[in-house]
């Protein structure tokens, strides 16, 4: 089984994000970066699947030289090799999906795993676009039934299940009113939710081995993809600072305020 997993570089949620005074973006100085947590879950799931069914996990990241750090992290977790699409200019979700489509056509994986969203832009789009571009089935928001403390989790059993004929995958997805199980023919696109698994640490031998694992370099030009964004970011601004709360005397006063001032009830 060959599995392609994305590994986006995102701002570490622990570092303080500040918008530039001119609204053209965020202040990057002093920021820390990490692999998108949803992608890390994807890498973990891929590794569990190949541990069970054999095969390889290929990780892909799009960005400047610095994204090699996230690729190395995935390789240190155990991914077998990496593809780096070297691109430093602006790009939107359609552009990313178009680049991934070409990488998929080149690599021909049985399964592509992406995060359901990345924690920087929170778009929740790329997996769906990619499935559409490829004409493949998709199962988004993959989750699982067992708790994170279960034996399955401890023994790193994959939550994505391959059917007996190995032609489809069964995915449990989180939906508004509970969990839905869907079956999807391979090749397919799956996006991960937070409660799919607990990613392993990058072990020391893993970190050492990662140093010599190959990272193939591609570019949008090599993949013949025009990544000119269709979407333009006009301005970024911080959310308005929260005003101090007030205390109300009793429930009727609360209802009155919610009704007349906040206009929510």
């Amino acid at each position, binding site marked *: 089984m060959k599995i392609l997993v994305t590994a986006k570089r995102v701002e570490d949620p622990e570092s303080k994000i500040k918008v530039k005074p001119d609204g053209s973006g965020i202040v990057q100085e002093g920021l820390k970066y*990490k692999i998108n947590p949803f992608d890390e879950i994807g890498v973990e799931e891929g590794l569990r699947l190949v541990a069970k069914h054999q095969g390889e996990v290929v990780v892909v990241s799009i960005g400047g030289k610095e994204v090699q750090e996230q690729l190395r992290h995935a390789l240190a977790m155990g991914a077998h090799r990496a593809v780096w699409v070297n691109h430093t200019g602006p790009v939107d979700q359609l552009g990313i999906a178009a680049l991934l489509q070409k990488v998929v056509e080149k690599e021909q994986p049985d399964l592509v795993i992406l995060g359901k969203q990345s924690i920087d832009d929170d778009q929740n789009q790329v997996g769906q676009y990619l499935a559409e571009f490829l004409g493949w089935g998709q199962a988004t928001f993959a989750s699982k039934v067992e708790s994170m403390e279960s034996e399955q989790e401890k023994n790193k059993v994959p939550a994505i299940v391959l059917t007996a004929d190995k032609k489809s995958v069964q995915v449990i997805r989180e939906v508004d009113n509970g969990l839905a199980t869907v079956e999807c023919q391979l090749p397919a696109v799956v996006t991960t939710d937070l409660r799919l698994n607990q990613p392993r*640490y*990058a072990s020391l031998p893993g970190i*050492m081995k*990662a140093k010599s694992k190959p990272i193939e370099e591609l570019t949008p030009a090599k993949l013949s993809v025009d990544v000119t964004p269709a979407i333009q970011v006009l301005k970024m601004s911080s959310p308005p600072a929260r005003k101090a709360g007030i205390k109300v005397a009793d429930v009727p006063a609360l209802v009155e305020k919610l009704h007349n001032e906040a206009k929510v009830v």
Partner: protein
Amino acid sequence: MRVRTGTRKDEVLVKMLHGQGLYLEEHDAFRRTVRAVVEKEILPFVKEWEAREEFPRELFTRFAELGFLGLKYPVEYGGSAAGELYEAVLLEELGRCGSGGVSAGLGAQFTISTGPIHQFGTDAQKHRWLAPAIRGEKIGALGITEPDAGSDVAGLRTTARRDGDSYVLNGSKTYITNGVRADFVVLAAKTDPSAGHKGLSMVVVEKGTPGFSVGRKLDKLGWRASDTAELFFEDCRVPAENLLGGEGQGFAQIMGNFQWERLSLALGAVGAMEDMLETVLAHVKSRRAFGQSLHQFQVVRHKLAELFTARESARQLTYHALRLHVAGEWAVAQTSMAKKVATETCCRVADECLQLHGGAGYMMEYDIQRHWRDARLGPIGGGTSEVMNEIIAKQLGL
């Protein structure tokens, strides 16, 4: 860090400067792993373990599983031969776990107790004690200090008298980290009581050997999650093959072992300071007085600037000594300087951070008080600051 325009053309230079000319990318990757382990598997339990005056024995096996107990030891004994810099990263990050006792108990396992076996032991001795220690199955301790001799290592009184093919041990040790739980103790004893420091040797004693008993767990100001014990030896007979190296080599062995111990204490202090400064920064930002946050007072920001500067200078002196050490130099003076400066700075920083907490700093529910108590051991353990001065003076021929 910000890049000066027009610089960074020289890739080699950039590589060299990365990690302040010390750590490489793979060390940073390892640091992220250790930090995640500390955050998930130690931090949430620190308060409980401190109150219980012990961390679970399983933490040793867990650390073994993660490969953390054998980072610098050879592969044939279960280590990963990755080198001392990885262990330095581990020590710094453990310093940030907020419990000196947890880092001390684990540290005693992979630094001071196994160090001499690795350096001076035979292959058989390494299979017997080093390998199971790396696997987390046997807990180790180092026993040098005695009720009547600590700084004065040459004045130790515990004796190891040769009798046929065994040594007979008599005497006592105190303040021994991991002493209560230790499965083996690397002991300093006089094989020739008349020969001063030349009569010292190192002998390994296993738990359960007749004549070896462990006293009570000592009640301490800090490092409360680590067990610290008195050990007694009464006609305790151990096989002669438990001797590490040759008779009379103990003093040199102890001094050699001290180098990494002192660096490890300095690195732990650097890590602890990072944690304290993060804690205090959050506190002064959220605490309000006189109509603004404490952080908005210039006097508070200047105080923080001084503390961050102190931390940075302690860190750089520590890195300097570490750099010399891993390059294979016998950097006794620099290591002693680093140990003294880092641990003393740590005490001062802890005290100032506690002060910045106001009354809250005096309350047991705040983490800063634990740092303050734990830091106090730094200038005492592993050779006192005064002993460091003595060594520095001798080394520099003053």
